[in-house]
């Protein structure tokens, strides 16, 4: 029996529409669209050849974003190329970059202030374009740390090369509430030059301030944290340098935990920090702080001093004239504990080009433009000096950088451009990033504070794990 034909719509117009939209019509339309697409494609491709897609990290203050947009706009005017740029927050940018490099659907340029968490790993994995040709014209002018922070080992080519076009660098200064120091009956000018001396002097502020009714105030915003991700590791590295252990990782990517001098420096560092904690001059919660907690606490004057990266701590309060221009003081670490000049650890930020970028030439051209000293200088000045130029001569030639208009700027720039510096160890081996991510140093502090382990035992435990991680990533 023949199956009855399905009912058609009774509506005459509806039926007519269905009849007109026959299979043949659909097929004809599809073929037409495909043909139009094929014919139009070369023009679309040509248009894209002059357009680079850029992902840019958002600044901490609005001025940084305005400065970044100005660089992009100026480049577009000068070159005739187009930058299709997006500015996004730090964490979102990190996640987008990692997702893009994992999926292979990449833009033409990443511009990141602090790419050290992912850059060594992706250079190691051969996922980034070698930008030596972009950096070469300016290489002789770059600071040594900027060079080291921009060159990474690639396990496919088996050599180090430039994978970052460095534009900016940041350091870690002491942030001190000068008014609280004075209120405690001490003087900023009396702060000792040596590393431990700074902490020992400022910890004396706590008792007098509490006696004056500040019940919950602490002296030191010491990020002895086991949570991270970054501040606790950064603090430990500076203690290590101050105690003579800066060569724990060398530029060849080798770990030197077997060097007794380095072991001794690490033990001294853990001992000093855990003693401060046990003395009660550090907020107990510091053991569980995240990277924003010390900033929030410092801004609320819940402790007298903090040791944290860049000038974002001060710039966040730029609208509070009294705090920004008078009360908040910035101090560059001066000497190690042996009296020799302290070496500050610097990072580098700038542009990276992922492999698979469709408009490589425009991306490279933009970075060549951006690396010009004049362009670099104007951009970073407009960003209120939160980052210093990767070319140190710039700050020596332009008096703005050492002006006292912003009190926080001069000591910070002195730390970056005039004092001795070392690069982040991440530049030497991606294994260091894994040690940091596991919070090995914070764990060592917790072992001493909470499990009553001796500092030497805690360091031996951390070093053992460090060696296991480095053994898997050999250069």
């Amino acid at each position, binding site marked *: 029996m023949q*199956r009855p*034909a*399905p009912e058609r719509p009774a509506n005459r117009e509806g039926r007519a529409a269905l009849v007109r939209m*026959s*299979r043949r019509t*659909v097929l004809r339309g599809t073929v037409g669209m495909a043909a139009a697409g094929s014919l139009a494609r070369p023009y679309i491709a040509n248009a894209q050849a002059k357009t680079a897609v850029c992902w840019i990290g958002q600044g901490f203050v609005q001025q940084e974003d305005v400065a970044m947009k100005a660089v992009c706009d100026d480049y577009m005017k000068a070159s005739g190329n187009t930058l299709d740029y997006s500015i996004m927050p730090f*964490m979102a940018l*990190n*996640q987008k970059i*990692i*997702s893009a*490099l*994992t*999926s292979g659907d990449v833009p033409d340029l990443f511009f990141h202030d602090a790419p050290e*968490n*992912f850059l060594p*790993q*992706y250079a190691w994995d051969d996922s980034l374009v070698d930008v030596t040709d972009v950096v070469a014209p300016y290489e002789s002018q770059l600071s040594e740390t900027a060079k080291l922070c921009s060159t990474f080992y690639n396990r496919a080519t088996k050599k180090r090369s430039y994978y970052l076009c460095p534009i900016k660098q940041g350091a870690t200064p002491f942030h001190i509430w000068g008014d609280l120091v004075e209120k405690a009956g001490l003087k900023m000018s009396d702060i000792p030059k040596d590393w431990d001396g700074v902490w020992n002097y400022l910890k004396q502020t706590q008792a007098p301030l509490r006696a004056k009714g500040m019940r*919950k105030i*602490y002296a030191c915003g010491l990020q002895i*944290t*086991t*949570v*991270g*991700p970054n501040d606790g590791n950064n603090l430990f590295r500076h203690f290590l340098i101050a105690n003579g252990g800066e060569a724990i990782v060398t530029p060849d990517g080798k770990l030197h935990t077997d060097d007794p001098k380095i072991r001794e420096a690490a033990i001294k560092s853990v001992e000093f920090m855990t003693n401060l904690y046990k003395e009660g001059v550090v*907020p*107990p*919660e510091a*053991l*569980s702080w*995240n990277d924003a907690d010390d900033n*929030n*606490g410092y801004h*609320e004057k*819940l402790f007298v001093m903090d040791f944290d990266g860049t000038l974002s701590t001060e710039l966040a309060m730029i609208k509070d004239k009294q705090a920004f221009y008078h009360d908040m003081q910035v101090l560059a670490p001066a000497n190690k504990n042996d009296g020799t000049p302290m070496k500050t650890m610097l990072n580098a930020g700038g542009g990276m080009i992922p492999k698979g970028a469709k408009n490589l030439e425009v991306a490279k051209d933009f970075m060549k433009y951006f690396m010009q000293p004049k362009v670099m200088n104007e951009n970073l000045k407009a960003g209120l000096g939160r980052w210093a130029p990767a070319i140190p001569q710039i700050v020596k030639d332009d008096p703005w950088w050492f002006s006292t208009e912003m009190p926080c700027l001069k000591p910070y720039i002195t730390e970056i451009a005039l004092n001795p510096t070392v690069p982040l160890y991440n530049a030497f081996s*991606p294994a260091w*990033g*894994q040690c*940091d*991510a*596991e*919070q090995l140093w*914070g*764990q060592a502090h*917790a*072992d001493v504070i*909470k499990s009553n382990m001796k500092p030497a035992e805690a360091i031996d435990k951390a070093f053992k*794990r460090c060696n*296991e991680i480095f053994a*898997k990533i050999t250069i």
Partner: protein
Amino acid sequence: MSVTQQALAVGRGLAATRSRRHVLFGGLHGADYVWAIAFALPYAAIFLAFVIYPIAFGIWMGSDPALYDQLFSDPRYLTAVVNTLLYVGIGVNVKMFLAFMLSGFFIRKRWWIKALMVIFILPWATPALPAYMSIHWFLNGQWGMLNNILYALFAIDGPTYLNEHWSGLAANISAYIWKTLPFWTVILLAGRMAVPQELYEAAAVDGATGLRRFAHVTLPLMANLYLVCTLLDMVFALGDFNATYFVSGGGPAMSTEVLATLGIRYAFTIALPRLGVAAVMSALPLLIPLVILLMRKLRMSEGQL
């Protein structure tokens, strides 16, 4: 073979062809069949692009056995597994029990209970990130609101909640319960409202009131919904990283880390996304039975809600 038999054989052949055709084409003919395909294609494409492809990509990313060697050698991994089991086991069950009890409270028809419901729903309506960050600061041992209240009322300094493993884990679980309790309460409330009033009236006629009415009418009718909700929430809780990440941050000393936060750390702190996927994939032995059980429950057609 007789003519009749031959005719019947041809008929059977035709019927078999039609049957196969019915299975293949769903009884559609010609242009109708093409239109059906045309309408189904976008859905199939979306399903492929947004369900099948991500799952297959995830499985591919976590397919290298070397990743699991690396994962199992990380001292944080075992801690994260134990914490995940505690987080899911305690967090989900305590919450569902509370939600069930509260749904019994909120079904009452007094005006102030309706008003209270509006306030009760607020944690669910609040965006997760600021809510969890507020809890992190609320629990701060030195300057947090909780300890300030304790000091104001009793002149005592409260503990540093996030510095201890157990109180840190309890904080994460409590925050998760607080955030999602209203949602499940509303779901179970809707379930209670769907119970026919006639059943309660009949039970009342038979003398069943109070606890007996609850045990013999409400509980049996709600059991299936309760179980499905519990299974669903277990699947959600296994993948939840917000509460741990923003309340305790995995601290102290990574002791409250769960698999979801460990995976996020691998992926986005040290740019090892494949290891991050492997960390999450290692929860599959727990996740797959849950999903199978959930599917079986959803297919049941018993006289329950």
